[in-house]
């Protein structure tokens, strides 16, 4: 017999709010709303990752293309900073709400299973926080490396290209000629790919934009997209390391 008094108490019934605390606040405090914020910010970041790759692949078209491309970006002036601020805000929101959710998830199972088998949940889907944090470390390194032009003694020596533009082409080639740097890029991109094999189809579910028929197709599509991005991005450091792309100027 279960003693009524010793029955585990739940404060839930009492804490369910009858009045909204403000609709936006309610939304941001609910599990579903938070997931949607993570999903929307995730979509924005995926679109950025696709656009960024298309921009960078111009390195295969030669220095004129990619140097002109980067000059166009710089010519945006204040708009460029607006875009950067927007992306930074997106990243911060994405991480902030994920961490909030992840802490709740840990608390929801204080006593772990002694034996645990997964039937369907993929490794990538269960390790989004870990892969995400490695990607964050990679992004910080990447920004310092190519935007801040750090870690490479050749960067300050680079001269402007014949059309007086910054020689992004040679900067990328010299940057990737270092095996350790390139390896870190490939590792970072691999973790990003794992993150996206789950994330790029997961957001359809979080936003309710799928059904029983679409879900498996979206999952396959998401994996294909993630691995295409991996191939596209890693092709650049690999092409440099294999000597297919040489710097436009000698130092």
């Amino acid at each position, binding site marked *: 017999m*279960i003693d009524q008094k*010793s*029955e*585990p108490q*739940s*404060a*839930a*019934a009492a*804490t*369910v*709010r009858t009045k*909204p605390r403000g*609709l936006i606040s*309610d*939304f941001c*405090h*609910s*599990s*579903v*709303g*938070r*997931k*949607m914020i993570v999903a929307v910010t995730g979509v924005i970041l995926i679109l950025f990752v696709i656009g960024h790759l298309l921009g960078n692949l111009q390195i295969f078209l030669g220095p004129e293309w990619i140097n002109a491309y980067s000059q166009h970006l710089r010519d945006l002036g204040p708009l460029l900073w607006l875009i950067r601020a927007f992306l930074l805000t997106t990243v911060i929101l994405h991480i902030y709400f994920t961490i909030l*959710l992840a802490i*709740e*998830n840990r*608390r*929801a*199972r*204080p*006593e*772990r*299973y*002694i*034996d*645990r*088998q*997964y*039937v*369907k*949940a*993929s490794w990538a*889907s*269960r390790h*989004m926080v870990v892969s995400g944090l490695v990607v964050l470390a990679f992004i910080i390194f990447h920004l310092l490396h190519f935007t801040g032009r750090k870690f490479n003694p050749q960067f300050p020596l680079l001269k402007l290209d014949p059309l007086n533009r910054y020689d992004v082409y040679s900067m990328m080639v010299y940057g990737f000629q270092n095996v350790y740097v390139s390896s870190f890029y490939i590792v970072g991109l691999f973790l990003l790919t794992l993150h996206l094999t*789950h994330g790029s189809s*997961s957001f*359809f*579910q*979080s*936003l*309710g*934009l*799928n*059904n*029983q028929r679409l*879900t498996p197709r979206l999952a396959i599509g998401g994996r294909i997209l993630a691995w295409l991005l991996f191939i596209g991005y890693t092709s650049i450091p690999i092409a440099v390391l294999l000597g297919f792309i040489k710097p436009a100027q000698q130092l």
Partner: protein
Amino acid sequence: MNFKLRIWRQRDAKSRGKLVKYDAPDIPAQASLLEMLDIVNERLLLRGEEPIAFDSDCREGICGTCSLTVNGEAHGPDHPGAACELYMRKFRDGETIIVEPFRVKSFPVIKDLVIDRSALDRIVQAGGFISARAGSAPEANSIPIPKHDADLSMEAAACIGCGACAAACPNASAMLFTAAKVSHLALLPQGEPERTKRVVSMVQAMDAEGFGNCTNTYECEAVCPAEISASFIAKLNREYSKASLRRSAGE
């Protein structure tokens, strides 16, 4: 058949539990896992030891009372089906079988393998019903319902409320349960009048109970004995965003 068992024994909600080893020789292959536990319990009683406490009722997979994690999977390795539908012939002779309770903070252990799942009842109490006039059953075809909607609603209504979704979820989230309970009413005209309020209150109740958050790993649908599809979670997300929009418009 002969088995080696490792079974979670816990005196009460407050004490610490541990896995205890038992030998289970001469078990008929056609026995269900629960019947095997019955046999083991009878032998324990004959030896004057305390039998293993576990929940069961219908023993035909329709009540959702049994709640065992067998070899690391909710309801054991034979999906779909509840633990009562898991037959010993599914195991190898001489195999070690580990039996644990569903481990979710919101499902506190009462004794051994018995857990308190009233958290799920409180989610239903928050809105998983229709405040309709009581009376005799209406004429069957007085409210026309498209076949597709009726079928989809019945698929969601198949949920037996066992809690395996939360038990299997890496985040201990009860989204699949809540999604099924919200969806089966949202798909029918009878559920329409309270549709907005229902989804908001039920998600609030789910969050207040301390369940984790869905990260779309789809582990829940893989272990669900009623084969509820995770696309109902997408439906819940849709319902929730629609409800938030309606509420922000003052409805």
